[in-house]
Every structure is written in structure tokens, then in C-alpha cells.
């Protein structure tokens, strides 16, 4: 059967047929071909380039973004000017196509997944550097595990058309769409970082590790949707975001290795002697073994900066819920047993969050509502500088169907630095909200008591410190 894609509308068909053909004509017609059969490969030689960092794509300076775009443009141009050159974009994309859907040596669904993709990106990165004559060029990574980086990095979507060598017209995600939180949030990432052994993390000879499905696979499908290039093994390499996504997947492996002394790679010769061949930046057919990939810094000459997420996450074992008996028609004095729990967490510098589910705010228009810990402060509406300011609740109507109100929002407010004094207030806490005025407009002062289906706290338990 052939399921109908919910995204398969006329615009997408147009983009795929016209946009793809204009930008990457040879890729659009590509078939899954072997990367090459030029006889026996020469062994990979030790890399003596300077060690340079792969960095988050969202932090690249304008000149670095331009360099990245120049490199991919050169690779795309090469595919047109010399279709037989294995360094051209078509051939580079088809490497994934071959190894992932045709090759008798599948590199998904088993312990080859992390190692093979590391090798693939390594040679791809060297070719990009060669094409712009910069041996210090390193791929950026899309650090989607950070909650503020869930959109595709701007370089890949700006401009969002075929003048951008990092663009791909088959994506289901728009530049303003975000990856679904549940595919990449801490519930997903913490088990990845804390996987007890390589089998759990990276799989074995006949099975995959947990992260290959999620977050890796989920991000592929979130970006590509049902019919976009990123959603299929044979076409994923046609989207430049693939390489930023997989650089982040490679970083997961690196971070997992660093996470604990027990996080060791397999010592089984069957793994260490796995070997694959790629063209290098000088069109030389090279073979490289898994054992030659395990230390990316000393062997492959790149490293990763410390992830802001990892600085916090490994210490958080769980979010402990503290649920005071909240009523909305009177101020709540947080009872000592709850208050002590939260204060202790704050004293220990643990993150504290306030959860408000199914909050009752006006849903008939797009607006931002400020939440305060007491009605007087909401009336004064001094914004973030107020000690009672807790955060905001955004309400965004559906762009296409403005007459359909969204569901009552569920919000999580980080209150680690704000709630401490309020917990001790003899007047208690009574949440209130007020619509945030437009820029330069005066506050309306129409504060209202906030009601919701449930309100509770949680704090990060960090006993692993």
C-alpha cells in the first residue's frame, strides 16, 4: 500500500519537482549506486591537521556561515561541472543511500551505526574543507537537545530558497517550526547519556542502541515528514541539515564516552576490525577501521566544546514533584512540609519549576500573559524586575484558522531564583496574571486571579553529584 502523506499537497509536489530539479539536478535523478569500485583501497593515514572544534551551528559568526555555505556550494557545483567526481554533492549523498539501503553490510540497526557515520562525516568534512582550501574547516552541529535550539539553525533556512546551498525544498519543517519537545527533551536525553554500556548506547552486532531510534530517527522524520528527503535512508544525505544533525549524533557518542569510566567502546575485534571505504579530499579511495575512529580528537582532529545541556543534565536524576493542595479562591500558604522541600532544593542550587496545567487565560486572541505570585504585583505589572514575577504564558492562535481557539496551555515556569522569598510570605501565594502590553504601550492593569486544573512544583534531584 502507499499511504498518502498529510503534507503531500500541490506546493510540496511543486517544490520537489521544480525546486529540487533547479538546485540539484543530478541528485534529483540519482540512483543508489556503490560509492566506487576502484580496486583495493589505500589504508587511511594518520591525520596531522590541527585539532579544531565542531561548534553549534547556531553560534557560528556570519563569516563562518558564509564559509559553510561556500563549501556546500562548491560541492554542489562540482556535482554539475564534473558528475564523475566522487567529491560532488550527488555522490556524497549517495554514499548514505548505498550503505543504508543497498549495501550487504548495513550500517543501521547495529553497532556500526555510530562508527560508520563518524567515518562518513569525517571524509565529507575533509572534502568540504579542501573545496574551500581550508584545512581548519569543521562541520557545525545542530544541538537540538537544548530547548532554545529546536528550530533548524538559521544558516540552513536563511534564505529559505534555492539560492542557499544549505537549503532543501522537501523539508516538512518550516524555518519557524520546532522539533517536538518529547522527541529530544531530557526524558529522552538523560537515558542516552546514562546508558550503562555500549550495547544499550550503540547496539551490538545484531541490534541497535536506544538513541538510534530516538532522538536520531525522530529528528530525521520530524524534519523530513512523510515524504521529505530526511525521512528516508536513500535520500537523507541530500539535505545538508543531515550532516549537522549527524554531527550532533556523533557528539552524543563523544559525550557518552566522557560521561563515566564505564562508558567504554566495544573491545571485541569483530567491532574494532570493521572497515569501510570512502573517497578522501584528494579523490583517493581510502579504507578506515572502527578502531581508527574511536578517539575523534587525536585520530580525526576535531573535538566538541562542552555542551551547556550536559553541564546540568548528568547531575539531574529525576524531577521530584511537590504538590501543595492548591486552591484558587484564596491565598495559599505553602505548608512547611512542602516549603521545606522546595527551600532545601533552592539552597542546594537545584532547579525548581512551577507547573500550571490547563491554565484559564483568554484564548480568543494571540497574547502574552505575565504571571505573578500575588495580585498586587500583577496589578503593578513591572515585568521581570518585579520580585513576584514568575514568567509568561504565551497564547498563539493557529495562523490558518484563527477562529479555532487553542487548547488551554500547559506551562512550566523556571522559578529557581524567584520563589524563595515568596515561599516564606505570611500572606501566602495567590497566582495572578495580566496581559503583557504591546511595546511602548502602558500597562492595562487588569490583573486577574489565575485558575488552572492543577498547579504544582518540581525540583531536580541531583544525588549523582
Amino acid at each position, binding site marked *: 500500500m502507499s499511504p498518502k502523506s498529510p503534507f503531500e499537497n500541490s506546493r510540496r509536489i511543486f517544490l520537489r519537482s521544480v525546486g529540487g530539479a533547479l538546485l540539484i539536478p543530478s541528485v534529483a535523478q540519482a540512483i543508489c549506486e556503490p560509492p566506487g569500485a576502484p580496486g583495493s583501497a589505500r589504508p587511511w593515514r594518520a591525520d596531522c591537521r590541527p585539532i579544531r572544534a565542531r561548534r553549534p551551528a547556531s553560534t557560528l559568526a556570519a563569516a563562518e556561515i558564509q564559509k559553510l555555505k561556500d563549501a556546500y556550494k562548491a560541492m554542489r557545483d562540482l556535482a554539475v561541472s564534473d558528475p564523475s567526481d566522487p567529491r560532488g554533492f550527488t555522490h556524497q549523498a549517495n554514499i548514505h543511500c548505498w550503505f543504508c539501503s543497498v549495501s550487504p553490510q548495513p550500517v543501521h540497526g547495529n553497532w556500526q551505526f555510530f562508527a560508520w557515520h563518524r567515518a562518513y562525516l569525517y571524509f565529507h568534512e575533509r572534502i568540504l574543507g579542501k573545496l574551500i582550501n581550508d584545512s581548519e574547516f569543521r562541520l557545525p552541529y545542530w544541538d537540538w537537545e537544548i530547548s532554545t535550539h529546536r528550530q533548524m539553525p538559521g544558516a540552513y533556512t536563511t534564505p529559505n530558497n534555492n539560492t542557499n546551498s544549505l537549503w532543501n525544498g522537501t523539508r516538512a519543517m518550516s524555518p519557524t517550526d520546532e522539533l517536538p519537545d518529547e522527541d529530544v527533551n531530557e526524558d*529522552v536525553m538523560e537515558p542516552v547519556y546514562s546508558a550503562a554500556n555500549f550495547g544499550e548506547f550503540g547496539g551490538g552486532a545484531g541490534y541497535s542502541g536506544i538513541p538510534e531510534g530516538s532522538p536520531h530517527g525522530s529528528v530525521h522524520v520530524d524534519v523530513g515528514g512523510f515524504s521529505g528527503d530526511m*525521512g528516508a535512508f536513500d535520500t537523507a544525505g541530500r539535505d545538508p541539515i543531515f550532516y549537522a544533525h549527524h554531527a550532533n549524533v556523533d557528539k552524543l557518542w563523544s559525550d557518552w564516552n566522557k560521561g563515566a569510566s564505564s562508558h567504554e567502546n566495544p573491545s571485541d575485534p569483530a567491532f574494532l576490525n570493521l572497515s569501510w571505504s570512502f573517497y578522501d579530499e584528494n579523490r583517493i579511495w581510502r579504507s578506515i577501521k572502527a578502531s581508527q575512529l574511536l578517539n575523534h580528537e587525536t585520530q580525526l582532529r576535531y573535538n566538541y566544546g562542552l555542551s551547556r545541556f550536559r553541564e546540568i543534565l548528568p547531575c539531574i536524576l529525576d524531577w521530584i514533584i511537590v504538590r501543595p493542595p492548591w486552591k484558587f479562591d484564596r491565598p495559599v500558604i505553602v505548608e512547611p512540609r512542602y516549603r521545606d522541600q522546595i527551600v532545601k532544593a533552592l539552597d542546594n542550587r537545584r532547579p525548581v519549576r512551577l507547573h500550571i496545567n490547563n491554565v484559564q487565560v483568554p484564548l480568543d486572541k494571540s497574547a502574552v500573559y505575565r504571571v505573578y505570585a500575588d495580585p498586587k504585583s500583577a496589578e503593578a505589572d513591572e515585568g521581570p524586575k518585579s520580585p513576584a514575577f514568575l514568567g509568561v504564558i504565551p497564547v498563539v492562535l493557529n495562523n490558518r484558522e484563527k477562529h479555532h481557539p487553542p487548547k488551554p496551555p500547559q506551562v512550566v515556569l523556571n522559578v529557581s531564583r524567584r520563589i524563595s522569598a515568596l515561599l516564606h510570605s505570611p500572606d501566602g501565594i495567590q497566582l495572578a496574571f495580566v496581559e503583557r502590553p504591546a511595546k511602548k504601550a502602558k500597562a492595562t492593569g487588569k490583573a486577574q486571579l489565575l485558575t488552572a486544573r492543577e498547579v504544582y512544583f518540581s525540583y531536580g534531584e541531583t544525588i549523582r553529584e
Partner: protein
Amino acid sequence: MVKRFANKAWCLVLVATLVLPAMAGSSKEFVLDLPQGIDTASSVVLVLSEVRLPRNAAVVLRVRVAESGAAEVALGSIGVLAESKDAEGTAVHAALRIDVTKTLKRWRKDHPGVNAMRIRVVPYAGKEPLASLEWSAASADLKPGA
């Protein structure tokens, strides 16, 4: 009178056409036994066995706790890439594994002592659930780690 009835009947048919596929649609429900030791396990993995998907389908399978009248609780998700957009036939995945350690632990705090739970697995592509995807899974089981 007849015309009004005909209109109503037509509306019912229309509603059924629009709503029923989405409800029955592509989601599958399973009842999971919660094995002993699940509360103290260092990890808990949900294993979907013998998952059959069209070879040309790229989907994220999202797992929810199926409780009537309650807000949806997300347990986890897994992305499965298509082999090729032009591929035909069905791919069989022997086991798809989703780590649900943290989400299940959170759910258990509100459901102590419960020894079974009902889950719903909903296939998505992009932001929307797929209403007409033909797929199946032979079973779903929770496997506690050491």
C-alpha cells in the same frame, strides 16, 4: 421531513467519514503488565515487537498513556525512517525499543500499586498524526533493566 432526514443522514455519514478514520485510524492500543521490580529498575524499556510498517513510510511512533478523561501523558517516541519513498511492500522490525524510564516513573507516582496500564501508539509524520497508515505491532512489553 424526508429531506431533513436525508440531510441528517448525510451529515452522519460525513462525520463518520471524517472522524472514524482518525479515531480508529492508525493508533494502536496495548495493555501492558507492569513487571515486578519496575519501580526500582535503573532503566525501563518499552519493546514493540514485530512492527510492520510500509517500507516507504517515515514515521515517529509516539506512545501515550491511554486514560479516559485524563490529559494525555507522553511516554516516549521512536523515529523510523523509510527505506525509500519508492519502496514497496512491508518492512518488519523485530523490536523497536523506547526508553521510558523517566516518564514511567513520573506516571507511577500518580498511580502507585497499579499493575497494568493501557497505552496508545500513534504514528506521526511531521506535526500531524497519520490517519490512514496501515501498520501493526505483535506486542508491547515493558522490560526493566538491572
